[in-house]
């Protein structure tokens, strides 16, 4: 039991030494760590870990190396990762059959396996250390502190990285001092709206009640955002500690995690971390002998996007349909079970221990004037380096997409980046040099959101993207207020009509009017922001809408009704692969033989074609094109 500050200091010092020795190799051992994030686990990372243990055993060197699983490395498109300490060698895209070679060559022979190192796509150079890879160079880890370094299922490793040091300092301060520290750090909510966290805490502290709650919003619903999941999977204790500090600051005794049921690994690790902290006396009554008591509880979502809205989330915890409540009263006054409650996002809480441990200045020294610290982005879509990226606020979109993200694959042209998910907007090339911060993104017609950043290239149809987001919102609208319930449905119908080539110019005016109505009259942020993707695509890509309506053409060749597949007879060698894969048998031989070819080329009967795209995926000669 760690029931005093002295005991915590003693225990932490031992854990820190143990972890440092391990990373520096002072224990004369090699340490193999594998990424245990969702992306790598679905690429066999758990089996690879087992294989390492087997091979070390087989070769009789299991006393010379340890095998451990850590949280997400962030560079998901290059996973699974294997890292070897103390040399800090990073292997990527590791397969089961590579394990034996790594053990023989590196662990036993001390020779780096060159072919498994990351190769810089520009210079072609092999890079052996994580920090030398461009993807990581501009990153700075605050919220992701410990992720990819520690074993999230082992509290000792988290303690080795400073866990509970922030809490320790907070408990030596008054509640008001803690809130002042958070205010001074400039921390703003990472869930999307960017409300100053310290002010939210102040409201809750000022609310008079014996019972108060802290709720952690882990209902990360933005499709394409997975930073909260990675934090919970990589260092759950940091979020627990952040919640405890918040609890102390406002005078709460209990905290609730609300996590998506779609995140089983995060849930499991959070559960383990809570149990371990309880067993050590770090959660419960009279923590560190200071008289502060706090416990954490876990509640799961059940697949409703709207529960990311704070009042809907509270209803869900209360066992009701996840529908938002009118505000005021705000949760800080009347929240969970009618008591004062603060609701903070996972990433926000993960920043709190660092602020208390290192001081407000440490956090606020990074960032822009009004957006301090760092922000984690889930970079995805048409970008080479897909993954999780934490950058200082103020980093430009160009740095994010091209320096860190490595640009657009296959030499395609950048078209837009969607930030803020279904509530945000798209930003085009002209905004690439804009610094990323809360206010600037809003000023440019998008928003920070929770940090999803989806890159789109010339092959993406922006009308189709707007339709995609609208169908998502329409699906997820809870139905409580009619502007959102009916307005999103009508907008989806119009967008569907346009993508089918049945739109009229009047539709564009109707879309704009509907979006104004839905924005002004919806009860919660889901409805109020529902039209943002439509508005921003209309603002930047009006010509694409017009092409669909007037020319009946989809310039990106995405909308099925407005495009055709065509076989270039001079490129087609007549192999018949497309014919065999065609589900409606609409590809037939012609009597034309191209110069240099032996067989007659094929042609698509566009009256029969259902535009499934099977042919284009199987053609190895690039003979099939979209028109």
């Amino acid at each position, binding site marked *: 039991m760690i029931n005093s500050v002295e005991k915590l200091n003693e225990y932490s010092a031992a854990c820190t030494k143990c972890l440092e020795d391990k990373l520096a190799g002072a224990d004369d051992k090699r340490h193999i760590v594998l990424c245990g994030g*969702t*992306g790598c686990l679905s690429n066999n990372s758990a089996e690879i870990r087992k294989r390492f243990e087997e091979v070390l055993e087989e070769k009789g060197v299991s006393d010379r190396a340890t095998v451990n699983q850590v949280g997400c490395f962030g560079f998901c498109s290059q996973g699974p990762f294997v890292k070897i300490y103390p040399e800090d060698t990073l292997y990527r895209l590791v397969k089961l059959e590579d394990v034996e070679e790594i053990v023989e060559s590196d662990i036993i022979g001390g020779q780096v396996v060159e072919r498994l190192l990351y190769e810089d796509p520009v210079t072609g150079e092999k890079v052996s250390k994580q920090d030398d890879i461009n993807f990581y160079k501009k990153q700075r880890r605050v919220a992701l502190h410990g992720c990819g370094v520690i074993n999230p299922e082992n509290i000792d490793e988290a303690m080795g990285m400073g866990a509970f040091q922030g809490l320790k300092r907070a408990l030596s301060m008054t509640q008001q001092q803690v809130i002042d520290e958070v205010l001074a750090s400039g921390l703003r909510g990472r869930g999307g709206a960017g409300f100053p966290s310290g002010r939210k805490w102040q409201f809750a502290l000022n609310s008079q009640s014996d019972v108060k709650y802290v709720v952690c919003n882990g209902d990360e619903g933005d*499709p394409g955002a997975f930073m909260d999941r990675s934090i919970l999977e990589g260092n759950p204790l940091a979020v627990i500690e952040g919640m405890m500090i918040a609890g102390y600051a406002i005078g709460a005794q209990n905290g609730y995690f609300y996590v998506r049921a*779609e995140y089983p690994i995060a849930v499991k690790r959070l559960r383990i971390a809570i149990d371990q902290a309880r067993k050590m006396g770090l959660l419960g009554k009279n923590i560190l002998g200071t008289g502060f008591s706090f416990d954490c509880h876990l509640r799961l979502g059940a697949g409703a996007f709207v529960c990311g809205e704070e009042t809907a989330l509270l209803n869900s915890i209360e066992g009701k349909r996840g529908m938002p409540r009118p505000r005021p009263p705000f949760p800080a006054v009347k929240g969970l079970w009618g008591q004062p409650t603060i609701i903070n996002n996972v990433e926000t809480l993960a920043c709190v221990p660092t602020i208390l441990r290192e001081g407000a200045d440490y956090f606020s020294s990074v960032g822009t004037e009004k957006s301090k610290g760092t922000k984690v982005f889930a970079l995805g879509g048409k970008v080479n380096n*897909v993954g999780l990226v934490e950058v200082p606020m103020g980093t430009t979109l160009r740095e994010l997409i091209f320096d860190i993200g490595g640009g657009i694959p296959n030499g395609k042209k950048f078209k837009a980046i969607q930030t803020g*998910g279904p509530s945000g907007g798209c930003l085009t090339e002209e905004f690439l040099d804009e610094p990323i911060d809360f206010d600037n993104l809003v000023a440019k017609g998008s928003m920070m959101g929770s940090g999803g950043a989806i890159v789109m290239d010339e092959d993406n149809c922006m009308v189709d993207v707007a339709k995609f987001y609208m169908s998502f919102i329409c699906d997820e609208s*809870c139905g409580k207020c009619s502007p959102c319930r009916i307005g999103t449905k009508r907008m989806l119908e119009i967008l569907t009509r346009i993508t089918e080539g049945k739109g009229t110019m009047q539709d564009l005016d109707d879309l704009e009017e509907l979006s104004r109505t839905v924005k002004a009259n919806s009860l919660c942020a889901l409805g109020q922001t529902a039209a943002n993707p439509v508005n921003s695509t209309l603002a930047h890509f009006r010509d694409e809408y017009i092409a669909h309506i007037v020319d009946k053409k989809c310039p990106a060749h995405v909308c099925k009704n407005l495009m055709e597949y065509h076989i270039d007879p001079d490129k087609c060698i007549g192999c018949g692969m497309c014919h065999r894969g065609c589900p409606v048998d609409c590809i037939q031989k012609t009597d034309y033989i191209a110069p240099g070819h032996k067989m007659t080329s094929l042609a698509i009967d566009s009256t029969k074609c259902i535009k499934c795209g099977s042919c284009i995926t199987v053609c190895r000669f690039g003979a099939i094109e979209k028109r």
Partner: protein
Amino acid sequence: MGGLNAAAVAKIEEICGRYKDENTPLMMILSDIQNEYGYIPLEVQEIVSKQTGISVAEIYGVVTFYSFFSLTPKGKFVIGCCLGTACYVKGAQQVIDKFSEELGIKPGETTDDGMFTLDALRCIGACGIAPAVSINGKVYPKMTASQVREVIAQQYLIAEKEGITA
């Protein structure tokens, strides 16, 4: 509730009992039942109602609100096509359309033989390997429409190997 055997009733009562010290535990109870049986039919909701004192109407309201809860049983193989944004911009719609066509069911439906359920998922966080398809928890990375038939065939092989019948 003629359709439920005594063991099932006892199990559901046991699940309700797990959370009797928790404030408003309905969601936790329903999640456990969903995980245990794969669906939450009306007979089961009636037992939960008796155990918790919450009206069946309210429970039904909650069950139908959340997409994770189902009133009907799911197939032996639940094919979840991720339609998160990262997967969508890389062609996930074609993949789910192809599954739909091959299995003859729409997303959310189960085949008549009870073998397959097709679900559209919202971001499973496997954005690095988009488009991703998850079948009974196993993730198939970088799916294309042309791989769909083969993946379905693989499920039949798994069914044969593990003795799963429709």
